[in-house]
């Protein structure tokens, strides 16, 4: 992008020229615009719904490989038996029946950004005027030696809720008292920055309650993490001796696993855990990296105000796959980005100016069922780049009484009920 003209300025300039018309200002008023949304999680489902709310004349198709969606939020609670996975499972019935969204159960395989067509795993192709990609992340099998799809059956990552969550739950359940649980946390960026620390906390809570002679060892590639002061203080109070964090500077980066011998290795040490949870490094799912959409980085650069790809026009990328920093890769981020993206698409299709958005995020984490902490921020967009609104961000206080922690735990549950109702209801 030349520094003297932003993309938006270019288009508004182009639109003012006598013969130039924005391609997206559809003259064929009687043909509804076609928007295809890929991914049925917090980003995709919310975007499809809000597109139809904003403009019921749009033809919106939601492509998702699963007939139902199991949420990652609260899957750490499910992992240790605090709630059943079925309580985290949603179908697309309301989106279909209540909002007139066409649901196509398939994998998005290939896309042609020039012809504006998407090819599905069942062989069908979908033509679009606007495409929204919200496919989430995939685990990188090339990042830790010995850790691939097959190894994840033995050492689950449980970073996509469902089979993996059940697998890790069974292993924790079967573990004898006195066992060692090793969790490996990756370098940023990855889905749900506080997730590994909430997980370590809730597993420690489970062990303290049921298998108190056991231990959780959290091997980290990083030297600091979101809400680290709050987590470390809470661990000291709730799980002394039971939960140990090994930072990158202490040699915590996991470099190799061997599922046959059951070993987990860092640059300096070797561990033989009873249960190993390897949260491997991640990247945008394959469809979001097609045709150079990730510019070779593994994640997709987008314009902050519209979430349109900086690589190909008419393709918008939201949620974990997008580079929306400083927003974290969270369900809340995906949900709020989906609404901004839906509003931008409606405006672009009508040839109207795109409003400057307000985005927000809160990440709640449970240290224990009655102990919640959070971090939040509000964001705006300046020169197509997302920025934190000064003074809007903050975390739970460090020295709060237990009643505050218990209140925040109940806020976390309310947040979950609200966001899932907003997304799937």
């Amino acid at each position, binding site marked *: 992008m030349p520094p003297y003209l932003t993309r938006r300025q270019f288009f508004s300039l182009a639109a003012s020229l006598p013969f130039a018309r924005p391609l997206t200002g559809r003259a064929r008023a009687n043909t509804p615009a076609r928007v295809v949304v890929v991914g049925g999680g917090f980003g995709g489902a919310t975007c499809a719904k809000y597109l139809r709310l904003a403009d019921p004349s749009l033809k919106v198709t939601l492509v998702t490989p699963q007939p139902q969606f199991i949420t990652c939020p609260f899957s750490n609670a499910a992992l240790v038996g605090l709630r059943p996975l079925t309580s985290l499972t949603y179908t697309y019935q309301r989106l279909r029946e209540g909002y007139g969204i066409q649901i196509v159960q398939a994998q998005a395989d290939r896309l042609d950004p020039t012809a504006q067509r998407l090819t599905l795993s069942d062989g069908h192709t979908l033509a679009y005027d606007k495409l929204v990609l919200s496919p989430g992340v995939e685990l990188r099998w090339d990042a830790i030696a010995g850790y691939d799809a097959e190894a994840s059956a033995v050492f689950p990552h449980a970073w996509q809720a469902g089979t993996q969550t059940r697998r890790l739950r069974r292993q924790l359940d079967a573990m004898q008292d006195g066992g060692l649980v090793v969790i490996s946390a990756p370098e940023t960026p990855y889905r749900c920055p506080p997730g590994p620390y909430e997980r370590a906390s809730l597993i420690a809570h489970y062990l303290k309650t049921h298998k108190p002679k056991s231990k959780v060892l959290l091997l980290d590639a990083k*030297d600091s993490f979101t809400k680290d002061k709050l987590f470390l203080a809470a661990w000291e109070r709730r799980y002394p001796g039971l939960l140990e964090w090994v930072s*990158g*500077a*202490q*040699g915590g980066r996991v470099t190799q696993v061997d599922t046959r011998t059951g070993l987990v290795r860092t*640059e*300096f040490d070797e561990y033989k855990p009873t249960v190993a949870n390897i949260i491997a490094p991640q990247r945008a799912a394959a469809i979001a990296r097609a045709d150079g959409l990730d510019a070779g980085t593994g994640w997709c650069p987008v314009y902050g105000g519209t979430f349109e790809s900086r690589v190909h026009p008419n393709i918008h990328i939201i949620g974990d796959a997008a580079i929306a920093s400083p927003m974290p890769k969270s369900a809340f981020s995906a949900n709020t980005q989906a609404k901004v993206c839906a509003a931008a698409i409606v405006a672009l299709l009508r040839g109207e100016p795109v409003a400057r958005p307000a985005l927000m995020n809160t990440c709640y984490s449970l240290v224990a069922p009655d102990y919640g902490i959070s971090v939040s921020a509000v964001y705006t967009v300046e020169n197509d780049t997302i920025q934190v609104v000064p003074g809007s961000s903050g975390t739970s206080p460090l020295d709060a009484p237990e009643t505050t922690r218990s209140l925040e735990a109940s806020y976390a549950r309310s947040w979950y009920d609200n966001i899932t109702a907003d997304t799937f209801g």
Partner: protein
Amino acid sequence: MAKARIKVPGVVKRGAVFEVRLLIRHPMETGFRYNNVGQKIPKNIVHTVRCVYNGAEVFHAELFPGIAANPYFSFFTTAEASGELVCVWTDDTGVTTSERVALTVSE
């Protein structure tokens, strides 16, 4: 907490090439940052690292402010005789620190 970690194989065959890993705990302050009351944080980085194996220097590095906190090094050298590997580094405050590890070489 240890100021550094050194990792060498348990036993190395004479003549074999082996890997040495060194992780130094150091903030590596660039001198470009400000603290929360607006004062410049003085530059303090590890500027020189040397590793000596049985008296002979086998690794030498000079570091600059572009190197992140807690620098990590990995290098290879040849096993000659059992003995000691000593890693020595100096930072901008003039503090010199060393860590040593014993090495066993088999025939």
